[in-house]
């Protein structure tokens, strides 16, 4: 019994080893969070998100921070596990100096944590979670700088019909929320446009070998292969093996594929003529993004599509915090309100950012590119019509 009491006390003490104070004074410090899967098999894109946000934070700090206070960028690793994602959310929420969060980039974790951030009025700006329902649940704190799947899906279907003259389409998608929902929206769009010869199957992301499922595609003889995977390297394997197997079809990749090194160069010529879409114009063609791109590539290596929106999101978030801090103190509510007031923010993405009342981008468009030589050539922009 005695042992049991000591044991219980010990556990109790473990729990009590914590507890910061309460205050909203700017001088206490400013924390911004970054939630994502920084370990596990999605670490590559998530670390790019974190590092890009870090560049933004460093730039602000170099300029003197906010009201002379240095900003602290806190990592919250959820390892892709929603239960840990909820832990991270609670951790950020209970940090009184935390005024905003970039992330979570995955739709399922965004869903699991929506309630917690919402209850605390803590602003979150996701850079990749594209599931439409996320902004349909009435939460004010949730923003995204990426477009929703339903918009992209429809635009991609339109593009395949109008520009690629598709009559027979094969859709391959990775089994993660983003790709799965993208496939669903696109197929719905294709059907609406009267294209019914559709084959759908899955690929296992990161498996490095898609030849079995591509052989199946070959037998189907589609005009267009819409290859929905999260990262550029996976798409590079896709396009490479499509070529290797001699499949006579147009390869159409997703956002992640707009990556010169990890897609075009990695495919070693196989990507020539392939199409990809993206929610923003080519980052290398935007002069405002030059310094960011240089900083990122100088420190962390090649840049794929996940970094720029994160840099943008962090800058927007810090702008909102900065405005809230003008009077010497900050509340989370102010930050959320300021984010809603963001109007035509001109950053590095190449289009002005305004959030609608749900937290979605206003007037999001889909940009289509074709690989030509060692570069992407913009073909057209679709805005849903």
């Amino acid at each position, binding site marked *: 019994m005695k*042992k049991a009491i000591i*044991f*219980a006390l010990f556990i109790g003490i*473990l*729990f009590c080893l914590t507890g910061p104070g309460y205050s909203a004074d700017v001088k206490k410090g400013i924390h911004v969070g970054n939630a994502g899967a920084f370990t596990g098999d999605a670490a590559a894109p998530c670390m790019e998100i974190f590092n890009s946000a870090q560049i933004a934070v460093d730039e602000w700090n170099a300029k003197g921070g906010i009201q002379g206070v240095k900003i602290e960028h806190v990592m919250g*690793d959820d*390892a892709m596990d929603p239960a840990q994602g909820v832990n991270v959310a609670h951790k950020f929420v*209970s940090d009184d100096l935390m005024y905003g969060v970039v992330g979570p980039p995955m739709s399922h974790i965004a869903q*699991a944590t929506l309630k917690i951030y919402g209850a605390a009025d803590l602003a979150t700006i996701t850079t990749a979670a594209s599931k439409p329902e996320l902004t349909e649940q009435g939460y004010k704190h949730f923003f995204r700088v990426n477009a929703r799947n339903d918009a992209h899906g429809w635009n991609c279907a339109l593009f395949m019909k109008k520009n690629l003259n598709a009559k027979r389409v094969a859709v391959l998608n990775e*089994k993660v929320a983003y790709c799965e929902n993208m496939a669903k929206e696109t197929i719905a769009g294709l059907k609406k446009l009267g294209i019914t010869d559709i084959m759908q199957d899955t690929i296992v992301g990161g498996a490095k070998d898609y030849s079995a499922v591509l052989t199946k595609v070959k037998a189907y003889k589609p005009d267009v292969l819409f290859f929905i995977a999260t990262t550029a390297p996976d798409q590079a394997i896709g396009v490479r093996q499509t070529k290797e197997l001699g499949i006579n079809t147009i390869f159409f990749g997703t956002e992640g594929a707009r990556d010169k090194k990890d897609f075009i160069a990695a495919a070693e010529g196989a990507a020539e003529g392939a199409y990809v879409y993206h929610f923003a114009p080519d980052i290398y063609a935007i002069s405002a993004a030059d310094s960011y791109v240089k900083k990122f590539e100088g420190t962390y290596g090649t840049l794929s599509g996940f970094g720029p929106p994160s840099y943008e999101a962090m800058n927007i978030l810090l702008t909102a915090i900065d405005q809230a801090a003008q009077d010497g103190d900050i509340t989370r509510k102010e930050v959320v309100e300021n984010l809603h007031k963001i109007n035509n923010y001109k950053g590095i993405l190449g289009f002005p950012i305004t959030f609608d009342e749900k937290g979605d981008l206003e007037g999001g468009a889909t940009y289509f590119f074709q690989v030509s030589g060692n570069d992407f050539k913009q073909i057209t922009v679709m805005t849903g019509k």
Partner: protein
Amino acid sequence: MMLIVAPHIMPNNYWLRIYTMSGLWVMLALGLNVVAGFAGLLDLAYVAFFGIGGYTFALLSSSQLNVHLPFILVLPIAAVFTMLIGITLGSTSMRLKGDYLAIVTLAFAQIFKLLLLNLDTPVNITGGVNGIFGFDPINFFGFRIISSVAYAYLIWFFAVGVTLGSFRIKRSRFGRGWEAIREDELAAEAIGVNTTWMKLMAFAGGAFIAGAAGALFASFQDSVFPNNFDFPQLVIVYCMVILGGLGNIPGVILGAVLLSILPEFLREYGAYRMMSYGLILIVLMALRPQGIMGEVGFLIRKKIRPDKDQTGRLRTSTELYYDENAKPLGISESKSQYAKSSLAVLELNHVTMDFGGIKAVDDLSLVLHEREILSVIGPNGAGKTTLFNLISGIYPPNVGSIYFEGREITGLKPHQVVKAGISRTFQNLRLFNKMSVLDNAKVGQFCRTSAGPLSILFHLPLHTKEENETDRKAKEVLGLFGARLTGYRFDQQAGFLSYANRRRMEIARALSTDAKILLLDEPSAGMNPQETIEITEFIKSLRDLFGYTILLIEHKLNVVRTISDRVIALDYGIKIAEGSYEEVANSEKVIEAYLGRKRQRVFS
């Protein structure tokens, strides 16, 4: 009390959540402890059971299938359904041993995860990668559980329940049965533990707890996703259980709490955190293989000298824990006649055991009479131990039949043979080394008791009565060996006994099954002359005073000569001689078997 106050003194919701989650982890870890800790089964499907519970709740309590059952119904449904799946998986894979069980269960867990991911087409059941979210709030008779504090209470209520249940089950026939299986499965079976059934019970118990925890978790998170029930979670629960020490309940709880708090301090370090986990695991396994608590427990125990009682008084070894009213040394009243009879209790008819061409026992027939000591002699490899294995059911004979008291026991499982009334010892000592002397003896009573999990968990009269009886019987049997196995030695681990005492312990364990026939496999092997004389006397007294019928394998011929009523000699599985000791010892064939041809009067 600590638990009641805790939710209110948590500094913020974050720590309240960690607190609640650690309750959930405690529950999960204790559930795994039943399977992996108590019964020693490497169950890698455990995380799938957790998921089955979670998804059962999700499907029965949300708009996914438009089923909205109340929580008070869904929780038991989830737990029982998971248990049924556990039993199904267990019964198909139970004949696999050790690592193979691990592999099959791992494959099952992988299949489960893939099904979760893919069963959203053609009919949307699991929600696929998007999971299921938005559940009905828990409603207990109008009392709604929504707030974080309410969840903290709810989950810790179940965690404490599982803890109490774990303690109770550990100190019961189930706990002892599992521990015996973990130590030595074959010996457990041969001493009357229905190992298949018990392993299935462990599987079911673990699955039941995991299912309930899954339902609670789903409700707490208000959503379920395939990633919630994946390999990393399995690794975490295993780490908790093994760090705490397999089977050690306080240790497992500490492990669960530590591992649910520790990561929170390291969340900002990403890969470094995982790296240090890996290192900690390696170092800990090398330095503290028995887990953190295992070591602490060992230190505490060391301070109490085994030969002193609680007050520090030196315990005399003759101080036996006898129940005043218990009949001294009386094993069974029906055996109180000491005269030999000619009633055949055990009959073997033309039994043959063929190991792929080698006939270890060949067309052997023998009869064992009531209260008789029959010795089996023969050179090494003659088939003596195989004979024991045949009688005790470890091998079913290829040909022939075995009758016990007129009833056919051919093909029965070892534990059924023990229950019928035949128990055995092992030549190469197969005690449950890490169990106490008293518990070793108590395991023998397993087949004589019948309390089920409910009796044990709620301490129903059946359980209490049987426990008292088991305790009395075990002490009685050990009492036969006087100071050797009683007094402070009751609590000593069997593995720490001296060699001769372990031999005695083997016999005591066989006696504690209330058997009528004892099969003793070289009981005096390795004993010095003095000990040999003593054990010979003891075996004799088992027949003379208590009326046991004994089949004895013995190499020491002076022992055989002293106590045998009859002797048979085996060579190459064939009975080459039978009769009194003199007859057998002087048989040409026997002498030949031992020494080759043309030798006279070796035995005198």
